[in-house]
């Protein structure tokens, strides 16, 4: 079955934690865009949602870092941040589909790690809070190492996405995919507060065009140039791999200074086209 839903969103904690610090018109456009994506998800009939998300030292440390980690838990809990302005809640996992996905990855030459216990921080809970506020369908999270050098290459993320797309296409379930992270931001680092809108727009332009060739060529230094948080866009690159050239559209983009992040949301309404 084709992918039933796909989108990409930023997950800056300020979106919920200090929402009103942003200019009202920016906040309204971003919240409105989340609402449009939520409506698309609701109308899609998606059974299980894959969430391609970022690790922020919530689950893993340097004692063991993998490039990708697939969640196989029956349920997850988040957010871990009491200040996020999102109520702590449970989210159901889809252990069977996670296993199906892992087996396909290993058969296809990609070996993500996996975990039966993962906690969610803002990186997963901000998008879920807006897209699936009732937490009423199971998810399979895939955490990307965006922190510890070396991060996975963009080319590898495309390949992972390609396997995800193939598994979704042959699954009996109706599979949706959310990629989350970015865009330009440098949290905790010297350029915190710097937003590179040119980088952000070029990246989203490649995503909108389904230009996997360009996306796969993003280098670590290019991403680092847009701030340490731009490595989170590797999840978007993986989504492009899953969509295999299908085009998308920018639903909103705002350089939100009080959130110190270039905030983007993209829809892929043709994801379901065979």
């Amino acid at each position, binding site marked *: 079955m084709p992918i039933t839903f796909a989108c990409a969103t930023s997950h800056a904690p300020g979106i919920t934690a200090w929402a009103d610090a942003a200019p009202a018109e920016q906040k309204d456009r971003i919240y409105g865009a989340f609402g449009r994506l939520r409506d698309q998800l609701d109308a899609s009939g998606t059974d299980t949602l894959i969430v391609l998300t970022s690790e922020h030292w919530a689950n893993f440390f*340097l004692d063991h870092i993998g490039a990708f980690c697939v969640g196989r838990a029956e349920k997850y809990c988040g957010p871990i941040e009491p200040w996020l302005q999102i109520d702590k809640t449970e989210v159901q996992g889809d252990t069977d589909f996670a296993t199906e996905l892992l087996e396909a990855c290993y058969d296809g030459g990609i070996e993500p790690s996996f975990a039966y216990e993962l906690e969610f921080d803002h990186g997963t809970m901000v998008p879920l809070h807006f897209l699936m506020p009732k937490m009423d369908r199971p998810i399979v999270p895939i955490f990307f190492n965006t922190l510890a050098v070396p991060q996975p290459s963009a080319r590898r993320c495309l390949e992972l996405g390609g396997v995800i797309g193939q598994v979704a296409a042959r699954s009996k379930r109706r599979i949706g995919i959310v990629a989350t992270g970015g865009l330009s931001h440098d949290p905790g680092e010297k350029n915190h507060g710097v937003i590179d809108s040119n980088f952000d727009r070029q990246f989203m332009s490649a995503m909108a065009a389904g230009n996997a060739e360009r996306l796969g060529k993003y280098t670590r230094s290019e991403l680092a140039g847009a701030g340490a948080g731009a490595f989170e866009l590797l999840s978007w690159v993986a989504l492009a791999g899953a969509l295999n050239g299908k085009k998308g559209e920018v639903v909103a983009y705002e350089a939100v200074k009080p959130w110190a992040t270039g905030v983007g949301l993209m829809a892929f309404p043709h994801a379901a086209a065979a």
Partner: protein
Amino acid sequence: MTVYALQKLIRDVNRKPAAREAYFEAPAKFAAGYNLTEHEREALLKFDIEGLYAMGVHGLLLRPFTILHKMAEPDYLKAIRGE
């Protein structure tokens, strides 16, 4: 790679309530449980954020650690920028 131990200490303080309590109660005693160099131990106990950052402590470990110390964001940024 002893910065590993330093980052491990900071991550433990950030993520583990019992470790956090022990650190704030007796920082030097808590630090003795980690294989830190003298340089690292001194920077930690003096709360030398510029020094800790320069040693390579990751920003997403260091900033939450400074928030626990109630350090305002502008002060943190000045510190890591060496201003």
